[in-house]
């Protein structure tokens, strides 16, 4: 059996797919922002000396790391409105779910970055008469940031791909548009191939950039 490819279908529907792309990028940028800020908060709580901060932070991180992202997205979308009475649009609840998920993973990245700086450096700083805050700002953070940037960048690439899960709650990003078009045109082969290609063309350069970042910022111990 030879299959008759009909790539005109893709060209005709490209505007719809690209419309979805705007949504994909918006979802990635916004939930990354939520994750960057939220993750820092969680990381600081986790590193705090007080159990009252530490325990909730651990519970939060573990809850988001042990359950599937799809479950989290559907959970936020259906459970949050029922239990709080706050109605969220699919896009907003998607942002909340993705943002919290990224926050959980980012908090571990921050924590690893901060704890990877040898404690002797902190002690040396203190011995030189710096205050705790000065040690953090002048000694620990400049080194921690260097170690945090590459994994953060790969988190971003992962997030870019994971926004496709928002299709499950009806956010009109690329994957959702693709499913609608595939169903309407009865051309899943062309549409899904084109969609995968779009994702590849956008993600691959990002992964290459991340690899370069890892090489450039490698820390020699």
């Amino acid at each position, binding site marked *: *059996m030879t*299959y008759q490819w009909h790539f005109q279908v893709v060209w005709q529907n490209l505007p719809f797919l690209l419309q979805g792309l705007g949504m994909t990028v918006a979802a990635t940028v916004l939930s990354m922002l939520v994750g960057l800020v939220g993750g820092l908060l969680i990381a600081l709580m986790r590193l705090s000396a007080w159990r009252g901060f530490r325990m909730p932070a651990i519970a939060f991180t*573990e*809850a988001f*790391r*042990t*359950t*599937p*992202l*799809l*479950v*989290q997205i*559907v*959970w936020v979308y*259906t*459970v949050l409105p*029922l*239990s*709080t*009475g706050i109605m969220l649009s699919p896009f907003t609840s998607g942002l909340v779910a993705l943002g919290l998920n990224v926050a959980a993973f980012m908090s571990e990245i921050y924590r690893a970055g901060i704890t990877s700086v040898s404690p002797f450096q902190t002690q040396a700083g203190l011995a030189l008469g710096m205050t705790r805050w000065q040690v953090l700002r002048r000694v620990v953070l400049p080194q921690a940031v260097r170690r945090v940037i590459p994994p953060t960048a790969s988190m971003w690439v992962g997030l870019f*791909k*994971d926004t*496709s*899960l928002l*299709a*499950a709650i009806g956010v009109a990003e690329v*994957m959702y548009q*693709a*499913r609608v078009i*595939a169903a309407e045109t009865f051309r*899943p*082969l062309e549409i*899904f*191939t084109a*969609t*995968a290609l779009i*994702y*590849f063309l956008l*993600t*691959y350069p990002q*992964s290459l950039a991340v690899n370069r970042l890892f090489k450039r910022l490698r820390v020699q111990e």
Partner: protein
Amino acid sequence: MSDPHLWQFGLILRHLPYLLAGAKMTLAVSAVSILCALAIGVGIALARMSRSRSAEFLAGLFIDVWRSTPTLAQLLWVFYALPILTGVALDPFTAGVITLGCHYGASLAETFRAGILSLPAGQRQAALALGMTRAQALRRIILPQAVVRMLPAVVSMFIVITKESALVSMINLRDLMWHAQSLAGLTMRSTEVLTIAAGLYAVCTYPQALLVNYLHRRLTAHA
């Protein structure tokens, strides 16, 4: 206003066996996918490190393609598009296993390669200088050390596969996520059902997470 009848677990607990049946399917599809991913990962890693240029190129292409597209896009492609090309219809289970196996096989291949390359080149050279063949050096010197180094990362990947297997509910494989969503629809108690489902996923993955922590501690203790 929030629902005053919220968080009534009694009704749902009666349906627990239904959810557990889904959890069984989740474990089955993840286990088979993990085995496939391991086999594919080893194959691709070997091809990537082989002396043949074309094998190396093809393995690199495989890795880049599977790692640079979303799993959901791959799943829908394998389930809806691939059968049109091959003429062979796939059931959701097979489509899920192919997708998860290839996607995470590509990731595992990189983990394996990184583990092997992390050993100093001097070890292999020393083995060859002692008169071992390449295969002997790999089996006796390189692999025993490399396996130890990559074990935590590999088991972490098992956790990711178990979680990501929830995606197969979108091609109607009746796994935990699918059962949870259908039960939520039937009982109109999505709050409780989805929360229990999330808990069951945690139950499936947490022991693996503990294993990772244990391996990490064990293996880095005398490094």
